[in-house]
């Protein structure tokens, strides 16, 4: 009898596979480069960047942060459930994670429409160019994460993962946490500190 049928969780040496960690470090490096570009551009255009954050929709940025940190909590709960071999609960938590991702996309769409109504566009000034570049890039990562998690939810439902084998699921969870980590820096940098 293997550990999965006994319902005993087996802790791997590394959460997920090495490949996903290479991807995560590459993605975080990409965001780090964007943050440094933001900082240098800000240093050369202090007036535009000082006035920029006050024109943004802080409520939308805050709601997006709340939704993303909640989604990280949901995906962590999904991992706990699969380690206990509780597939139904794992699927439920994954569904909530995807719902949080969809809420993030909805809020971001509303924020862009709100910006448009205020006359804010990507070419308004350098602050808004970088704001759109950073946030839209992050939005694309959220969409990729949602597609990945949807696929993993389907595979969990089909019985591909259990307490003895959940590396694929853990890869997706780690990637989702990375998306949250990037936003944790992006939100205060662009919306709060400017």
């Amino acid at each position, binding site marked *: 009898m293997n550990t999965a049928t006994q319902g005993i969780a087996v802790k791997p040496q590394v*959460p997920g596979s090495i490949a996903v960690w290479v991807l995560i470090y590459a993605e975080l490096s990409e965001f780090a480069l964007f943050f440094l570009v933001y900082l240098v551009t800000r240093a050369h255009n202090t007036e535009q960047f000082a006035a920029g954050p006050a024109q943004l929709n802080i409520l939308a940025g805050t709601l997006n942060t709340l939704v993303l940190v909640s989604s990280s909590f949901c995906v962590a709960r999904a991992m706990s459930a699969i380690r206990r071999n509780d597939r139904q609960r794992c699927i439920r938590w994954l569904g909530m994670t995807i719902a949080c991702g969809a809420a993030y996309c909805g809020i971001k769409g509303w924020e862009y429409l709100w910006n448009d109504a205020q006359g804010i566009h990507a070419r308004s000034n350098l602050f808004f160019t970088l704001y759109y570049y950073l946030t839209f890039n992050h939005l694309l990562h959220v969409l990729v994460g949602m597609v990945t998690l949807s696929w993993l939810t389907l595979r969990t439902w089909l019985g591909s993962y259990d307490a003895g084998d959940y590396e694929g699921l853990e890869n997706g969870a780690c990637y989702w946490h990375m998306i949250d980590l990037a936003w944790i820096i992006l939100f205060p940098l662009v919306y709060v500190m400017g």
Partner: protein
Amino acid sequence: MKISDVNSWRLLILITLVSALIAETGGITPGLILLICIAVIVKGQLVIDVLMSLRGRHRAIRAPMLAYFYVMMPLLALGLLFPEWLERLTTL
């Protein structure tokens, strides 16, 4: 200190709301910039250690993840606090 995932989530929500409150009130001072950078490091560490379950395990994975926040945030704080110095440094 061991913290549960629920308490970690509550703390993340609380820090986010405080950051939003600061953003709404406007008037960012150097002290507030430092405070926000520390808050971001705390948030990053909560996600990495508690939600990703990397605390006390997987040192080779955890250390670079934490370093991302412990290196990036002081760099951002320096750039935000001393833009003239950064401008001089990056002018060709």
